[in-house]
């Protein structure tokens, strides 16, 4: 042989198309790709979600709730009733609404509040607004904190990761309700004297901040885990080998893969906040008068539960349906995004 060089001169054997016995050429299955019509994993999840009947029903419920909450002022103009209007003339001497089922009439579809004489429908509709606003804002805040902290911990690893883990444990160890009970009045005293009533916006901001500060841990853990497992994947190495920086890898490569689970946590956080917000109102550290609030309605109604159960029923049912619908939708969302069925 005369191949002194490397590479060896092209021998006929090397030139021919490889047909090594142990590697036999065969047609690649081409049919598989033809079945699909360019659908992203998210589009597939969306299709699955649309097929899910529970998801459709709960989505419809929530849509109605959202429309009603957003359209509350419109409804007020239509009926000519303001949530603060007091129809004392429709109450009897004991402060109870005149008529059947808590004073239900063509003017007041869900009757009147005993004592104050306010229209329950308007209270309910505006209360829905308060609940949804607080729950969504808090979920957004908690998710933003959670994503930022989780990405930081998962990406940096090392001592920063340990610090974040320690912080998460600390936050989880804190009894949230007791903290809220203790801190909300204290903070309020710092900003407002006994005489003046705290502004409703201040209370709402305080509640949102408390929720946000205590609820980022779950999202943070989730995102941290996702980042840690995804950063080892070879597509991240491919980006790095092409010269990509941290920003590209985090925002373009990793985030598209973790926003779906984040969405699931948000959808499960919202009903939790709705329920806790109502509970806060129930222990009288929630939203203050005159802002309508579902939790406070229940709190107020307890005194009348024997004489006028309808007053308790409507806000109670609303919260129940809202929380149930959100939880069912969140579960359906998680199922539809299940990575096992994506591939």
């Amino acid at each position, binding site marked *: 042989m005369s191949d002194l060089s490397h590479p060896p001169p092209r021998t006929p054997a090397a030139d021919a198309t490889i047909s090594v016995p142990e590697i036999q050429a065969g047609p690649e299955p081409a049919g598989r790709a033809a079945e699909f019509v360019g*659908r992203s994993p998210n589009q597939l999840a969306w299709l699955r979600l649309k097929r899910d009947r529970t998801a459709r029903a709960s989505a419809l419920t929530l849509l109605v709730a959202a429309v009603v909450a957003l359209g509350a002022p419109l409804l007020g103009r239509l009926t000519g009733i303001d949530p603060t209007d007091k129809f004392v003339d429709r109450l009897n001497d004991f402060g109870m609404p005149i008529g059947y089922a808590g004073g239900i009439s063509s003017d007041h579809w869900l009757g009147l509040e005993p004592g104050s004489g306010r229209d329950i429908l308007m209270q309910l509709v505006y209360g829905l607004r308060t609940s949804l606003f607080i729950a969504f804002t808090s979920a957004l805040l908690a998710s933003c904190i959670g994503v930022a902290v989780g990405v930081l911990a998962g990406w940096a690893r090392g001592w920063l990761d340990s610090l974040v883990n320690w912080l998460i444990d600390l936050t989880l160890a804190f009894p949230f309700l007791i903290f809220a009970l203790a801190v909300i009045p204290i903070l309020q005293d710092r900003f407002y004297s006994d005489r003046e009533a705290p502004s409703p916006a201040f209370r709402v901001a305080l509640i949102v901040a408390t929720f946000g500060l205590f609820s980022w841990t779950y999202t943070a853990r989730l995102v941290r885990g996702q980042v840690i497992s995804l950063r080892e994947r070879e597509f991240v190495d491919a980006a790095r080998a*092409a010269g990509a920086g941290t920003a590209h890898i985090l925002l373009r490569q990793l985030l598209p893969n973790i926003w779906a689970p984040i969405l699931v946590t948000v959808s499960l956080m919202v009903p939790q906040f709705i329920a806790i917000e109502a509970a806060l109102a129930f222990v009288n550290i929630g939203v203050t008068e005159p802002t309508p609030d579902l939790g406070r309605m229940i709190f107020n109604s307890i005194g009348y539960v024997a004489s006028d159960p309808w007053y308790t029923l409507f806000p109670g049912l609303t919260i129940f349906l809202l929380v149930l619908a959100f939880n069912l939708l969140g579960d359906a969302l998680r199922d539809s995004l299940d990575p096992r069925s994506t591939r």
Partner: protein
Amino acid sequence: MNGVTNGQAAVAGDAGRLAGEPLLSVRGLTKHFPVRQGLRARGAVRAVDGLDFDVRPGETLGLVGESGCGKTTTGRMLVRLLEPTSGSIMFAGRDITHGGRRELRALRQDLQIIFQDPYASLNPRHTVGRIVAMPLQVNRITPPGGVKKRVQELLELVGLNPEHYNRYPHEFSGGQRQRIGIARALALKPKLIVADEPVSALDVSIQAQVINLLRDLQRDLDLAFVFIAHDLAVIRHFCHRVAVMYLGKIVEIGDRDTIYTRPQHPYTRALLSAIPDVTTLGPAGRIRLTGDVPTPLNPPSGCRFRTRCWKATDHCATEEPALTTRDDGGQLTACHYPESGPVGVPTGEPGSNERT
């Protein structure tokens, strides 16, 4: 075989393009992964332990060895996904061993990698178009005619339908996915591609197609390759030169024909005899290696292969064999008792034990 070592090879030049500087030059390349127990360091996994090799422009070097011998670690150090513990990597005349991202940006474009796992190497949430265009985007390159046109050219180049740029990875088969990975590696028009077992995750029927594609690309685009494989069958018709690795070291390196027809190292012979049609050439039958690969945490003294070598003597345990030319062979071999003669007749000289 004519006495050509890899050091002298460039002199014997009937292929003119090989003359001159090597494109990639690796010296003493080492990677130790520290093993911690609690906070204290407790030894190190000596994954790669002092590699020397060169790759010339347009040349393909096969890097072969059993699983766990450090091939992937080597490949990742070459493209600077891993920081070498020591040693040096020269690429196109520049030392890239410890360069930062900014310094390496221009060189990185000439040095790309194809990954082993066609499932993990493509971002499931990106379209094929986005995946292939990613290297262009990252380096802010706008090719003439636009990114989309370039992507479609690349898809066509690797044998995919250019109209499929809007599809997602999960809509493709393993072989097609690997082609997408190849298109991505080609996007920056590299000079050298590290291919880390690019076909071992694929069906046997598809392996040959992908290898043929890579070989065509190698010729048409005059690419240099470091082609990693765990057996000698896959790279047989692909590589100009072959380096055989065992436990983080190169035990034999030489021209393709030399390695395949007159290997000197017992380990190379064992690997060769695992290829079905090679054993039929020789009368001695198949060499079956017994025992496990020792842990790189604590490799054997002397010759690292001695725990599984049928020719091992006390000398092998005490003195590490250097990687040099032996018995006028055309290759470099790290063995005190190199084999001679054509393949298939392993001579059983000192301490003959495990062989069937």
